[in-house]
């Protein structure tokens, strides 16, 4: 039992995985259509955009930061892509520019956070406003259709697997690799644990911080292209506000908002979980306006449960200490 508890607390993503599984089972009982291969595929495709961004956001939150400009980066990146596509017709140019620009905007976030030491929430709030303005400036708020062939990114299949799922898988694996196999990944977690200790240990804190925001930008750029392809064209304001769904996915996945601990698996499952809620409410034919309420309640429930289990653990440690003290005698 103790061992079970230990793995459970060390692998926090198990909680959201179980919740997702439970929700999945419940949905399959309600609807026969749920547990089909095509529906599961469709759920994953729907989750791909937020899940990919959640991978990037996980890195940022692991360092104790946050990026609320992600939606605006998504908007700007898709605008740039569509604009270049229309003007030059060159895929390679549009892809390079869009992905490069997404990374660049992320880098700007990172640089500002590192250089001016204003808290990330405010820094990215300012850049959110700027990026959004820049995006509308770029397109004049026009809808710009993208060529149909681009739909391949949104609903094409490679080896029978939908491309968005494939891209999610690639981002997921790369994210796992970066976080778990490289020095960088360890540094990310270390900074989130204690930036001061990380500096005292001579870790390259500034570089790592900038890099996590670049990763945030990069994943947003990839997500932008998928969304653009699926929606079929640039729509003004696309992606604005998505960052809060992404943050919710990351937090539901068990990553601490204060940084230091969390997993990529959890964040991706968190994104899937949110899509499942939509899916379930859809199947129940619930009013679309109830979705927000349900998501809000789920989010609150998740943080409350997390808090309760944390406090139990802390109390357990204290009780052990009390026992130890009691057992030592008071007489010299």
């Amino acid at each position, binding site marked *: 039992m103790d061992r079970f508890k230990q793995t459970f607390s060390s692998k926090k993503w198990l909680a959201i995985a179980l919740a997702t599984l439970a929700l999945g089972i419940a949905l399959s009982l309600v609807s026969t259509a749920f547990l089909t291969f095509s529906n599961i595929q469709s759920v994953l495709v729907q989750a791909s955009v937020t899940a990919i961004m959640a991978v990037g956001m996980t890195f940022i939150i692991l360092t104790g930061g946050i990026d609320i400009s992600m939606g605006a980066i998504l908007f700007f990146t898709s605008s740039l892509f569509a604009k270049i596509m229309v003007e030059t017709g060159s895929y390679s140019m549009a892809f390079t520019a869009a992905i490069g620009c997404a990374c660049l905007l992320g880098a700007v976030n990172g640089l500002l956070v590192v250089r001016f030491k204003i808290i990330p929430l405010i820094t990215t709030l300012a850049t959110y*406003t700027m990026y959004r*303005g820049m*995006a509308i400036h770029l397109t004049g708020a026009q809808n710009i259709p993208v060529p149909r062939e681009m739909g391949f990114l949104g609903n094409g299949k490679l080896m029978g697997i939908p491309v968005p799922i494939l891209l999610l898988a690639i981002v997921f694996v790369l994210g796992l690799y970066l976080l778990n196999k490289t020095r960088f990944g360890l540094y990310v977690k270390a900074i989130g644990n204690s930036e001061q200790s990380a500096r005292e240990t001579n870790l390259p804190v500034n570089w790592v911080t900038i890099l996590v925001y670049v990763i945030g930008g990069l994943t947003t750029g990839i997500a932008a292209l998928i969304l653009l392809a699926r929606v079929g064209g640039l729509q003004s304001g696309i992606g604005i506000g998505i960052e809060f769904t992404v943050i919710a996915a990351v937090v539901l996945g068990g990553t601490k908002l204060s940084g230091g601990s969390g997993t990529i698996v959890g964040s991706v499952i968190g994104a899937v979980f949110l899509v499942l809620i939509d899916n379930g409410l859809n199947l129940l034919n619930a009013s679309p*306006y*109830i979705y927000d*309420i349900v998501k*809000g309640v789920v989010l609150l429930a998740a943080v409350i449960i997390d808090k309760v289990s944390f406090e139990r653990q802390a109390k357990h440690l204290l009780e052990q200490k009390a026992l130890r003290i009691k057992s030592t005698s008071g007489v010299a």
Partner: protein
Amino acid sequence: MDSVYKAEGGSKAKLRNSLGALKTYPSVPIIVSLIIAFSSFSPYFLTAGNAESILAANSVVMIAAIGMTLVFLTGGIDLSISTVISASAVVAGTVMASTGSIALGSAAAVGVGLGFGLLNGFLIGYCGLTPFITTMGTQLIARGLAFVISQGIAVKGTPYALLDFGFYTLWGIPGVMLICIAILIVSIVGLSQTTWGRELMLFGSSRDSARYTGINTKKIELSVYMISGVLAGIAGMISIANLGNAIPGVGDTLLLIIIGGVVLGGTSMNGGEGSITRTILGVGILAILTNGLNLMGIPFYDQLIIQGILIFVGNGLAMKLSSNKR
């Protein structure tokens, strides 16, 4: 000030005093230069009518920003302010549409705000949850509530008296702004002149020290989120007088403007540093900026870029000045 300065006397002390004021309110020179610049660009800028429209248009943001300032001063954040405005507007609108009573409508608006404030305050103050995630959750709930009740459509049937109040002015000051000013005065006095306000500031500057000094930290945190909720409720009601109807999404777009105004004024998100007066100035800068740029014909998307830069620079400047303070 007191004895030490008096003893110094002379122009030196005066200079230091005014420099001190500049450090406390770094936004004043920005406002002054904005006003000078805009009035030279547009003849309409410095007119009574324009001033009135700036004042009326920003009362909702200003009232909500007062709540946000209090929350910031405790080192927290309230993301739900915006959608609680929407929810309370819709509830108030629905109540007024069916009863025709402004009093009942106002009570409903304040009640909804209070309800969400209590929920936030309880979860944050008594259960120890993180403000960001907690209020993100209640934000979603409030938005859902607003849309469920209204079915997404503006609630019509606002009593004429309330609409007329929307047009009421006293010495050129819109009625809604008068309410806002009253709330401003109460909150400034409350924050600077009562024991509660003092304890709030102390709590914000160090929550452990506050606890060790015997300040009831849970109550302070609860009260702050409660007030922020109530103010959001009032703002929701004001939005009806302002716009003529209760709109389910009325507050949703305001969140970033509210936070921007508070931060631009120089209230720190880390708590214990800042004031309502600074927020007035911060919200004022954004209001004047938007109005002036509109009059100049700058497209709104370019205004966004300017706003973003200003929020960043303004906040950085305020932080720098206050950290060097004496």
